[in-house]
């Protein structure tokens, strides 16, 4: 057995994880055709063990294995050159453990000390370089972008992040329960990350929480998706300087997050989820309020989207701007909403058969341009509105259950993984405990980690002035990537 196959939210003993060689991994990856969702190292005495997690989206299974690097092994033959999806994973592994993937096409650290490395450069008389950041003109997070352009046309964009690196993973190993920190992994995906975190710890503790808590978590998750998608549609309109779009979507988003405030006391749902369950109930009256609010929101979004998609000036900005083809998206291992907009239909809610959802993959013509991402958001909002209404209905049947259960101790020497479909895409949290039952390694993979490279691909051969629009259409997270 080269791989151990488990489900989402399942715990295994560390000894159950097989050990393979890098060459075996290369072969298997080619053969199995599964997606890589985890590739991270951990110190094991003097040696370093590399854990690899692949996802089988058709069956909803996870394949786990490991590669051991002994003390004297300081390099291996890179996987990225064969499979671009490993690109950032290998850079991260190299940065954290110093084991060099040989022949990696662009080996630079991912988060720290990057200024010592040079940028990708193009030679040519007409080629000029435009550098922006780390501080941007808008109220957004820091990141550095380096464009190689000819006139207004972009040939290549290199994205350098890491400015938001604040050691979240390390901090998470320090305590058993720190939901507030998990919420701050990425402040626009509060519920997503907190759910994934809580699930991992609950799995490691062997606790199963009540259905009621599960449902409330999912309602919050969908509300978050609705809110952020609406906000993003407004931001896209704002980038095109289409004022009514920006203001109406903005106002509509406020309705959603204020409902969140009514549920949890925070506009982003902070403090709602804790390990062991949730802290706030959704009572009958709030449930009615949510339904009323959603109906109104859906109406407004419908109306506004229709108007916008009729405007020639809007359409001409969005159509065929920032295109990423399905092949490209698949090759680089894109995930989530952005991947779906390019026609790669992966959605962990559906693929991993979450029993609380009755969802189906959306059908629409995915072209991978800004328009597709805009339109997909619109469709997902509608889908989520239905989902919330469904969930609220099931919630009634679980009225008498507890909100929170007691949690036990962490099982020693174990490995657990949890995948949650946040609004941006799959959020993967892995945790490994040591023999004392303490977390010794915590690993987070935000969807942005995979998708930043998509943005680079998207702006190629586009006008540089379309970059902000492309960027907004992905709305990737800097802090989720930098951790």
């Amino acid at each position, binding site marked *: 057995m080269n791989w151990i196959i488990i489900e989402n939210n399942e715990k295994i003993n560390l000894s159950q994880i097989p050990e393979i060689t890098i060459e075996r991994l290369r072969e298997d990856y080619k053969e199995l055709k599964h997606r890589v969702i985890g590739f991270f190292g951990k110190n094991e005495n003097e040696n370093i063990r590399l854990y690899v997690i692949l996802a089988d989206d058709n069956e909803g299974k996870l394949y786990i294995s490991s590669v051991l690097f002994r003390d004297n092994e300081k390099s291996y033959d890179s996987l990225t050159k064969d499979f671009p999806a490993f690109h950032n994973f290998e850079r991260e592994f190299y940065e954290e453990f110093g084991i060099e993937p040989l022949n990696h096409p662009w080996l630079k650290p991912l988060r720290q000390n990057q200024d010592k490395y040079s940028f990708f450069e193009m030679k040519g008389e007409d080629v*000029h*370089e435009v*550098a922006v950041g780390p501080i941007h003109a808008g109220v957004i997070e820091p990141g550095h972008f380096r464009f190689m352009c000819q006139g207004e046309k972009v040939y290549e964009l290199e994205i350098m992040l890491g400015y938001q690196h604040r050691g979240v993973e390390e901090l998470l190993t320090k305590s058993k329960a720190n939901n507030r920190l998990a919420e701050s992994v990425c402040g626009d995906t509060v519920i997503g990350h907190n759910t994934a975190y809580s699930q991992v710890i609950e799995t490691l503790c062997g606790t199963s929480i009540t259905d009621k808590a599960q449902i409330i978590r999912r309602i919050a998750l969908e509300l978050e998706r609705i809110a952020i998608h609406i906000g993003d549609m407004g931001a896209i309109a704002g980038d095109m*300087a*289409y004022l*009514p779009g920006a*203001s109406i979507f903005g106002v509509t988003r406020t309705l959603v997050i204020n409902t969140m405030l009514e549920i949890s006391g925070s506009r982003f749902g902070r403090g709602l989820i804790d390990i062991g369950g949730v802290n706030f109930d959704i009572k009958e009256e709030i449930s009615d309020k949510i339904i009323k609010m959603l109906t109104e929101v859906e109406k407004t979004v419908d109306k506004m989207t229709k108007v916008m998609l009729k405007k020639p*000036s809007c359409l001409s900005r969005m159509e065929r701007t920032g295109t990423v083809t399905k092949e490209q998206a698949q090759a680089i291992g894109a995930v989530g909403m952005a991947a779906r907009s390019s026609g790669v239909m992966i959605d962990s809610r559906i693929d991993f058969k979450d029993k609380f959802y009755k969802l189906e993959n959306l059908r629409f013509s995915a072209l991978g341009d800004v328009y597709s991402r805009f339109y997909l958001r619109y469709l997902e909002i509608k889908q989520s509105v239905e989902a919330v209404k469904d969930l609220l209905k099931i919630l009634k049947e679980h009225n008498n259950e507890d909100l929170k259960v007691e949690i036990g101790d962490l099982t020693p020497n174990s490995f657990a993984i949890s995948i949650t479909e946040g609004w941006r895409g799959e959020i993967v949290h892995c945790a490994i405990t040591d023999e004392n039952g303490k977390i010794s390694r915590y690993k987070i993979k935000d969807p942005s980690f995979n998708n930043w490279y998509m943005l680079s691909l998207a702006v190629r051969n586009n006008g540089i*002035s379309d970059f902000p629009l492309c960027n907004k259409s992905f709305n990737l997270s800097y802090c989720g990537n930098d951790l």
Partner: protein
Amino acid sequence: MKTAVINLIILLIVPFLMIGVIKKTKAFWAGRKGVSVFQPFYDFIRLMKKEAVYSETTSPVFQIAPVIIFSSIIFAALFVPMSTGEPFINIPFGFIIFSYVLGFGKFFSLISALDTGSSFEGMGASREACFSTIVEPAFFIAMGSVAALTKIDGFDNLKMIMGNSGTYGVLIIALLIITLFIMLLIEGCRVPVDDPATHLELTMIHEVMILDNSGVDLGLITWGAAIKMFLFEALIASLLIPAGLPSLISIPLFLGIIFILAVVVGTVESTMARFRMTHVFEFIFTMSITALLVLTLVTYGIYGN
């Protein structure tokens, strides 16, 4: 003399009010309360109280440019017909001086942007330069036609159009207004050409060129930009005010037109998305075409029959 003083006051004060009105209009459409129409004054006063910061990479050009830009705009303003239809200085072919003095100021804003050595300021400068080259001929064609039509070579000829436009009067006026209005949007850096409210350095045109200016310098540049936009509105206004009106009527009429135009600009901004950079050129060419149409009509009107 009295009107000249009034005109001077209008020239210095109304541009900020006009910007205020545009902002208010936009706020109205967005469902906001919006800033007071006097906000541009407050901003200006605040900037006047601030120091200027210069980066180490800039040369003296960068430091004197704001003054040159501002004074060139004021100088150009002297040739533009104001409320009474008379410019401060009325000489033959004033519009040529007008255009080139503005061009002189623009040249300085371009080199001061390049002087900062920042790559996107250079990008903004190249965009701006590109637009100006297309705007300029159209302006001359339009103004030349007016001169041909009215047989007056001063800039005060605009007011004669109303009464003296021959066969295709309404059409010519309409086309001239369109030409000047598009020019106003370009020179004033408004949507759909540029977005004055944007926060995206890569899409800006005018804004990106002044990213490095601060304090008093910035105050002068924003004031200058407001006046420049006002000048184009003034041109449209003088087109619409017939000659020979007493100043008691023409001044309120002039102000009325200015503010109505401001509302129109605000409304355009609220209802349109900004064009993609490549489409902006098509938009600018529209203006050249209308200018050419004016010329055709005028020539036809004069020589056709």
